[in-house]
C-alpha cells in the first residue's frame, strides 16, 4: 500500500479536528486507539483509506479518523462500501458497524458481503445493545435481557456473529476485545492484510446501557482463566499457566482437558478448509467454556472486485468497439 515516496504516518496523523463525542468510558475510545495504532504500524496513507459506517454510536467512527469517511444510513454500509471497492479496487475500504447496524437492519448486506468475498474490512462493534437509541436489545443481546422494549426480558435468542459469518461463507473471521488493546491491534493488522472480506467482531463495553456485558470473562481477574487465545498452528490452551486445553470428542463436542491429557488439546488451524472446527468454537457456551478470541478462519479466495476487473480487462482485450460502432450495432439502414 504505502510506497517509499510517501510520508511515514504516525498514530496522531489519523486524528481529526472533531472532538470525539462518545460517553466518557465508552469502549469505542479504546477501539479507535487500536485502529489508529494498527494503521500507523501498517503505514496506511490517509488518502488511500476510506471508512464507511452505518448509523449508531459506533458508526460515528469515521468523523474521528483523518481519512476519507462516509457516515451513511442504518445498516447499509456494506452495500455502499461494496460499490466503492468494486468501482475502485485500489482503495483500502473499511466498514465500521454496530451489532444493531450489522446484525439487525443490515443483516442481509452483511451476509452477502461475506458471500461475495468483497475486499472490505468490517469492524463490528458488538456491545450487545442499541446504544444510540438508548438501550434496546440487539440481535446479539443475551436471551432474557431486560430493556425498555423488553421489560420482562427478551424472548429471542442471540446470533453469534462469528457463527453467522461462517454460515455465510466468510473467508476471514476474527474476534477482538476493546480492552485487549495490543491483541486487538494485532487482529486488525491481520484483517487488513487479508484480500477478501475480513470480519472482526469486537466486544465493546457500552458503559451507559449495557455496562459490564463482557466483564464476566474480560476483567483482569478472570481473563486468564476465561479467554481462549486462538493461535495458528498451536494447541488450544488457556489459563495463566496454559494448563488447560480444549479438545473435541468424536461428536465434535468440545471438552476441557488438563493435566496428563493436555496433549490431546486440538491444534488450531485458522486456514482449515472445513469450517466445522471454527463453528464448534464459535458456538461454545460462554459460561461453560473459555471465550475464543483471535482468528477463527482465514482462507485465500479470489475477491469479487478482482474477478470483475479481470472479466472487464479480458473483455476489453477481446473486443474493441467505438461508441459509433456500438450505436450502429444490429441492422441499420440509410435514408437518402
Amino acid at each position, binding site marked *: 500500500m504505502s510506497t517509499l515516496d510517501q510520508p511515514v504516518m504516525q498514530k496522531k496523523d489519523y486524528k481529526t479536528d472533531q472532538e470525539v463525542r462518545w460517553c466518557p468510558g465508552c469502549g469505542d475510545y479504546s477501539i479507535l486507539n487500536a485502529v489508529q495504532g494498527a494503521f500507523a504500524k501498517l503505514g496506511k496513507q490517509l488518502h488511500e483509506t476510506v471508512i464507511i459506517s452505518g448509523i449508531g454510536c459506533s458508526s460515528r467512527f469515521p468523523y474521528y479518523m483523518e481519512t476519507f469517511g462516509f457516515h*451513511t444510513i442504518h445498516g447499509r454500509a456494506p452495500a455502499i462500501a461494496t460499490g466503492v471497492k468494486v468501482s475502485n479496487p485500489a*482503495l483500502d475500504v473499511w466498514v465500521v458497524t454496530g451489532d444493531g447496524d450489522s446484525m439487525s437492519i443490515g443483516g442481509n448486506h452483511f451476509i452477502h458481503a461475506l458471500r461475495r468475498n468483497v475486499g472490505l474490512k468490517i469492524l463490528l462493534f458488538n456491545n450487545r445493545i442499541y446504544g444510540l437509541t438508548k438501550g434496546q436489545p440487539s440481535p446479539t443481546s443475551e436471551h432474557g435481557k431486560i430493556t425498555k422494549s423488553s421489560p420482562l426480558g427478551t424472548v429471542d435468542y442471540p446470533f453469534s456473529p462469528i457463527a453467522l459469518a461462517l454460515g455465510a461463507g466468510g473467508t476471514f473471521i476474527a474476534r477482538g476485545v476493546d480492552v485487549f488493546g495490543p491483541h486487538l491491534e494485532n487482529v486488525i493488522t491481520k484483517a487488513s492484510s487479508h484480500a477478501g472480506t475480513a470480519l472482526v467482531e469486537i466486544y465493546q463495553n457500552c458503559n451507559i446501557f449495557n455496562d459490564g456485558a463482557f466483564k464476566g470473562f474480560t476483567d483482569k481477574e478472570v481473563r486468564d482463566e476465561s479467554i481462549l487465545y486462538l493461535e495458528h498452528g498451536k494447541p488450544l490452551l488457556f489459563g495463566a499457566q496454559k494448563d488447560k486445553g480444549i479438545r473435541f470428542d468424536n461428536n465434535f463436542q468440545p471438552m476441557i482437558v488438563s493435566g496428563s491429557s493436555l496433549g490431546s488439546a486440538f491444534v488450531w488451524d485458522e486456514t482449515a478448509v472445513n469450517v466445522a472446527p471454527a463453528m464448534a468454537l464459535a458456538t461454545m457456551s460462554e459460561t461453560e467454556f473459555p471465550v475464543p478470541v483471535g482468528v477463527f478462519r482465514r482462507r485465500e479466495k479470489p475477491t469479487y472486485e478482482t474477478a470483475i476487473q479481470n472479466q472487464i480487462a479480458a473483455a476489453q482485450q477481446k473486443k474493441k468497439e467505438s461508441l459509433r460502432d456500438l450505436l450502429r450495432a444490429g441492422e441499420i*439502414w440509410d435514408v437518402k
Partner: protein
Amino acid sequence: MQTPNSTHTSLDKGLQDLDQVVIRFAGDSGDGMQLTGDQFTRTTALMGNDIATFPDFPAEIRAPAGTLPGVSAFQLRFSSYDIHTPGDAPDVLVAMNPAALKVHLKELKKDGILLLNTASFSPLDLKKAKYEKDPRNDDSLSGFRVIEVDLEARTREALAHLTLDVRAKDRCKNMYALGILYWMFHRDMEPTIKAMAQKFGKKPELVEANVAAMKAGYAYAETTEVFQTAYRVAPAPMKPGTYRNIMGNQALCLGLVAAGQKSGLKLFLGSYPITPASDILHQLSSYKHLGVVTFQAEDEIAAVASAIGASYSGCLGITSTSGPGMALKAEAIGLAVMAELPLVVLNVQRAGPSTGMPTKTQQADLLQAICGRNGESPVCVIAASTPADAFEVGYEAVRIAVNHMVPVIVLSDGYIANGSEPWLLPDVDKLPAIPVTFAAEGTPGAKFMPYERNPETLARPWARPGTKGLVHRIGGIEKQDVTGNICYDADNHQHMVDTRAQKVANISNGLPPIETVGPRTGDLLVLGWGSTRGAITAATLRLQEEGHKISCACLRYLNPLPNDLGALMRGFKRVVLPEMNKGQLTMLLRAKFLIDVQCFSQVNGQPFKTHEIQQYLKQSLAGLREARR
C-alpha cells in the same frame, strides 16, 4: 387500410397501395409471436417504412398452453408517412389458436383480415379458450375477411424432407404464417433469412427448417386462390441519415453509455432484476468490453447503495428498477440528496400499486419520484417519451447529475421499454459535451471544504477518494455548509434545506424552450409527459387538420419544471393533460400555476389509444365553443 388504388403484380393478382397497416400477431407464449413480430418489424424498417411496435406479454408467470392467460401478442404498424403510435385497432389479426382469437378478435377492425390457424380447434382447445362452441360455426367471425389455414399440417408438409422431430417442425409454424404475411404485404424475405442464419448458426437444420417454412408460406399465399390481392406500403419520407430500429430499454442503455464515454466517467450499475427493467441490467452487463461495471445486488436497497458508493468513489452510479423496487430505494436516495452526489435512478414504471400487473404499463410513480422520501428531499426528475427518446433522456440524466451533483430520477414505462421505433442515429461527435472536474489535489495544511459550492449551480465539489489532501467526512446527518461538519444549528438547517432546493431549481435555467406541436397560443393546449406522447401528438395533429386551434407539448423535465411552462399554458383558453394515472402531473401544475388543468385519466394498464384522446379533446373543444356562446 385506407386509400386502396389497384394495380397489378407479376402473378396478376391484385396489388393495392396502402399508406399504413396495423398487424397484430397473437398466439400462445410458446408460438414465438414476439419473434415473428420482431422479424416483420426489422424487415419493414429496412424497407424504409416508418414503424411502431407494441408487444403485449402475458403475465410474468407461464400459463398452460392454449389458455387465455397464456396468450402473447405483438402489434406493429407501418406506414408511408410519419406515425407516432403502433395504432389502435389492427387491420390484420393473426390468431394462432382459439385462445388468441378469443382475446383479440374484439379489437380487429370491421372488414379486417383474420388469418386463423385451424390446427388447434379440438374441443379441448376450445374449452381451454373458454369457448362454449366453435366460433367458426356461429357468426362470431362474420364481418371479417377470414383466411383459415392449418398451419401445423402445412408446415409439416413443407418440412417433410427434414429429419427434425415433429415438435421442432411444429415450432416453425409461426414462420409459415410470417411467409404468408410477407407475400401479402410485399416484404423482402432476405433479412429474415439472414437473421435465422445468425440466430440458429450452430444448428443448420433449424436454420433450414425456419427458412423453408417461411418460403412455403410465401409460396402458398402466392399460389392458392385464397389470397386475391397483395398490398404495398411505400417507404415513408424520413429525415435522411442512418436508422436503426430500437426499443426503449436499449436506447436508455445506449444513452448512458454514450454519456459515460463523453464524460470520461466509468459507469457502475447496481441493480436487482424486476420486470420490465431487467433488460437494462442484462444489456449493460454485456458492455464489459466498454468498461461498464454491473453489480447484481441482493436487493434494491443494496443496488442503489452500491451505486451511491460508486458515485462517491468517482464513477457514475446508476440503479435501475420498477415501482416496488423504487419504493425500497427511497431512504438511500435521501442519503444521496444529503451527500449531494451524482446518481442516476431509472424507474421503468409498471402497473401498481404493490406488485400490481408487472407486465402492464402505467405512469403512476411520478409523485413517488418527486415526493416519496422523508423530509424536504429534492431531486431532478425527467421522463422518456418514446423508445428513441430514451437515448437522449439517458444522456441528459448523466449530464444533469454530474453538472449539478444531484440524484436524477428517469421515468420510463413498460410501453416505452418494450416498444420499438426507427431511430435516426446521432452523430457521436455532435453529442453535447459533459465536462467533469474532480476536486484537485489539496495543498498540505489547507483543509478541504467538501461543501464549498459553485456559485452558479450551487453544486459542491466532487472529491475522489485516493486523491491526496482531500480527506474529509460526509454523511446523512445535517451538516454545516462549506465545512460539511455535523451541525444542528437551526439557521444552518434552514439554509441547507433552502440551498438543496435552490440547487435543483437552478437546473431549469439551462433548459431549452418547450417544443410544441402547433402554435404557442390557441384554444386548447394538450400537455403530456412520458409514453403518452405518441397518442397525444397523433390526436392533436388530426384535430389540427380538422382546423382546430389546438397544440400539444410533451414535457421531458418534470422537476424542476421548465421556466417557460407557465407562459405557454396562459397562451391557451384551456389546458388538458392525459395521464396514465389519476392526475399526478396535473396536480403539480394546478398547485404551481393555479390554472384549471383538466386531467384525462386512464389507469387500466394499457397505453392510450389515439382515438380515445382525440374524442376527449373534441369534446373539450366543443365545451370551449359552448362556453364562448
